[in-house]
């Protein structure tokens, strides 16, 4: 299989940057799930769709807005009513497609279409708050949950994948611009790329 090229190009430069007076406040990386897919249920079919997702990924989650789950090598979260962004192993879309019946919903492969950027560290909430009008506090945005939002023209699907870690899925064509935006926002706290 041919390797997927990162959309970040030379904008991805490992090292430490910005104000490092108190050490880097965040670490920025590119999470590279083997596959990304959107699975969507027709109205009234969310439960069977979630069952199919569980069959494929082993992750179960309630049919509530914003719900999500993170597991070993897979993650899933709601991005709209009955709509889920799933990341996981190679062949994910085909497996999901096989598990979702025609009248339940649809599956669309987005492995190339989205880039997943990861921000982690004690100042992650602060840096993200510069870019998104979302309440990133743990009470409002618990681990595993997901949100669909936008930074100006850049759509973003965000999942909290750890206590101070977030994965941000953006359209591939915007990934480099958004990465640069993220780096700029993190200069104040200092950041490490790696």
């Amino acid at each position, binding site marked *: *299989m*041919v*390797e*997927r*090229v*990162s*959309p970040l*190009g*030379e904008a991805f430069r490992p090292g430490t940057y*910005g*104000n490092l*007076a108190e050490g880097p406040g965040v670490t920025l990386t590119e999470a590279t799930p083997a596959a990304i897919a*959107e699975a*969507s249920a*027709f*109205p009234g079919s969310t439960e069977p769709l979630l069952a199919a997702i569980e069959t494929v990924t082993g992750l179960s989650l309630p049919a509530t807005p914003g719900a999500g789950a993170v597991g070993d090598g897979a993650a899933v979260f709601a991005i709209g009513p009955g709509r889920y962004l799933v990341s996981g192993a190679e062949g994910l879309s085909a497996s999901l497609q096989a598990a979702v019946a*025609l*009248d339940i*919903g*649809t599956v*669309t*492969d*987005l*492995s*190339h*279409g*989205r880039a997943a950027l990861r921000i982690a560290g004690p100042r992650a909430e602060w840096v993200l*708050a*510069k*870019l*998104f*009008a*979302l*309440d990133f*506090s743990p009470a*409002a945005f618990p681990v595993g949950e997901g949100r669909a939002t936008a930074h*100006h*023209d*850049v759509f973003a699907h965000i999942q909290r994948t750890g206590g101070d870690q977030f994965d941000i899925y953006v*359209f*591939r*064509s*915007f990934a*480099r*611009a*958004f990465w640069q*935006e993220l780096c*700029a*926002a*993190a*200069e*104040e*706290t*200092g950041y490490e790329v790696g």
Partner: protein
Amino acid sequence: MSARRIPTGGLIDRSRTVPFTFDGKAYTGFAGDTLAAALLANGITLIGRSFKYHRPRGVFTAGVDEPNALVTVFKDGVREPNIPATQIELYEGLVAESQNRFPSLDYDISALNQLAGPLFGAGFYYKTFMGPVVGPLKGTRFWMFCEHFIRRAAGLGRAGYDKDPARYERMNAFCDVLVVGAGPAGLMAAEAAAKAGKRVILAEQEPRAGGAANWSGETIGGKPAALWAEAAAERLAAMDNVRLLTRTAVWGYYDGNNLAALERVGDHLAAAPKGAPRHRHWSIRAEKVVLATGSFERPIVFPGNDRPGVMLAGAAERYANQFGVLPGEKIAIFTNNDGAYRAAAALKKAGGAVVAILDVRPEISAAARALAEEAGVVPLLGHAVAGTAGKRLAKVLIQRFDAATGRLSGDVRPVEADCLAVSGGWSPAIHLASQAGRNPAWDDRLNAFLPPQPTQEWTGAGAFTGAMSTAEALSSGRDAGLIAAGKKASRAKLPEVAAPPLEAGPAPVFEIKAEGKAFVDLQNDVTADDVRLAHREGFVSVEHLKRYTTLGMATDQGKTSNVPGLAIMAGARGLAIPEVGTTRFRPPFSPVSIGSLAAEKHGHFKPDRLTPMHDWHVERGARMMEVGLWHRPMVYGEAGETVEQTYIREAATVRASVGIVDVSTLGKIAVKGPDAAEFLDRVYTNMFSTLAVGKARYGLMLREDGIALDDGTTWRLGEHDFLMTTTTANAGKVMQHLEYYLDVVWPDLKVHLASVTDQWAGAAVAGPNARKVLEACVTETAVDNEALPFMGIVHGGIAGAPVMICRLSFSGELAYEVYCGAGHGTHVWEALMEAGEAFGITPYGMEALGTLRIEKGHVTGAEIDGRTTARDLYLDWMLSKKKPFIGSALMDREGLIDTNRIRLVGVVSLDGRPLGGGAHIVEKGSLEELGESIGHITAFCYSPALSKYIGLALVKGGKARHGTRAFVSDALRKRFGPVEIVSHHFFDPEGSRMHG
């Protein structure tokens, strides 16, 4: 230090001397000073010149309400005009300059304007400068001649043209309770809400919390009030659920309890820390808000009230108590209320000589009397200031005054003074509360407007509500904090306040009428007589007053002038103040840097959108162009080539052999589900349910009003699985259009849409050798005519990457669109280039792409411009008669089928010269005498296939003009010449090449 600096006391740090310059001269102050305080300490009282009359002006207040002492600050290599010296914290190396003066602050030529003062009354512009009706200065010329000089005289500071190098950021914040103002009331509110477990933000525009506690001279809980406030702020700062933001002015109260605030992060520092913004724009979403914004002292209007040395009493007190600066050596006090007596005592205590207290009231409270005694002076009751003298204040002219009649009487007596501290009462700072819409309520006791009933989720506390004493501030603050936290008011004991029991309400005296210019709006030079002139001329409503005189329109937003202005108008009209009305306050409460609102957009306005092959294009020397947010290659120029030469070479290579173009930017929408085919039948003018799996079809969409919306090909990848392509420009618009119909109009259809624009890299390989290129690199599928006929789709691989290939043509050549996963884009592209090397394959850009499509007469956004119909573009063959579709009901209205509409044609330049996009077409005329336009050119190129300049055009009558002569008429580019109108299908109209 100068004599004006009090030896001890204040909240300044005397261990840190801070050097700065003003008008090029070096001075020093202390850390904790404002520029205004430091200038006063250095004996500088003349700081600026006024807007209209260029009168000398000094410091009038100590805060955000400052109308006079505006300066330009030089920092980061750029200039920042119009900053109140009262708002500038001293930092090492601060460079400030006075404004609106020439040649110098002391001797300003434009001060001569004053001599013609009576001519320059309110509205004088409207009555003159119309100029002669005939002759060289008729029309608007005379006015524009005069205006040139007026504009140069107006304005305050000068802005630079250099890019502001500063960094600005936006911050989104969420909290349970936002407390605005960290005076005693705000501190109490924040602590009460925080102790109840709420997430609290406390915002204070000054550098330190405490508000009036910092200069009141009172004690709270047995401690000096300033220390009490400091301790309270420290307690709050230590709490995890509290964010204390100082230097942060909340300036806008928007819908949904969304408040906007400006944090001045770096203004007080000589150099900002790495990565830190100069300003941070906070957008705060609060469940509840506590407004504890305090109040503004207002002046009394009297002749000569603008002389440097005249200032608000509270400001004088603040300079003494907070900054350790005496604003004058011989200080007179003029008041209509008790508050100024506390200032008098403070100034005396600080070492000043209080030479007189003039009070318009016939009687005063015992507490006031006691303070006068402390100040060492017997107040002159029933007295007023009738005038002042000196360039800088030297004398105060006093006279007996009857507050009941408003009349002066008796002899005018001069009192020598270099500072006159004035108090005309206090106005609650209701700006934020009133932004939401309702009118404030007038209070007869305070002679001030109180906040309106809330339209949003806020509670008020402290002086903002009209509760003027510190004890009231503490209790109302705590109550407001508890209410905001959803708790009941507390009865627990509050810290004890030691303060003189002063009466808060002033006598209703707003103006002392006497000879001379008495200023209401100091910054805009609006006088009391201007207000009366406005009245005389019928501009009597508040809004007319404001607009006619410019009262309250200056950078201080009328904080000191609003109520006095209204009062004078009320007097002229014989009405009570609330009957005259009040100005509605709008955002911002105080001026906000434009950079902070642009935030991260300053420096890079919009995100760049890049195709998967972007780096390849750039490395190959492509000249890139902006198409929406995308960057696309315009031409792949070689050394010494012009753009025209390049695109001609590229296009010619495609026609002769083969070329490749990046089409990844085309909008791509996955349309899936059991009803997908039915859905497409409804949204496209032509049929898609009849399309076979593995085939593509060109489709056209209309808007509901029958106008063309977009076109593109849609591929049937499976029975219930379509891939729709849209034009690059309309991708988002079409997606929204489709989503609207699914959600709103046809909710029963089982169809899902997903944007897959970014999933696929696309390369169009076009030219007679295109198939050979594919044959050289495509695996796992045949690409011959049988396996891959026109509009067919196959799946295979290129260099190990899976690809999907559709045979379709925009260029009119044998052509294929090769799609692969975006992450494989460059890999596949390079493999195609390598396979094409033997055929001399050329990458081509937008210019050649445009050339090829013009030669074919294919339409794009220049023709589908939101005004054209399918018929206008001769696409009526695509309008199915077998089914209704979006737009079918209205597309045949008379206006849309009128034969005189502009319709698509081709044009050929007959003089061998280029045409031009946007040039018009005329039947006759010349550049000197422009003819009547019958249409315009939408796109043009030099056609290598035809060896001529050709273009597409929309021309009245369309086809009916084929074969006729006309002229291209391009007045803007001075181009006029003959053209022939022809069919828009210039090249290979039968399509034999793409079907071959």
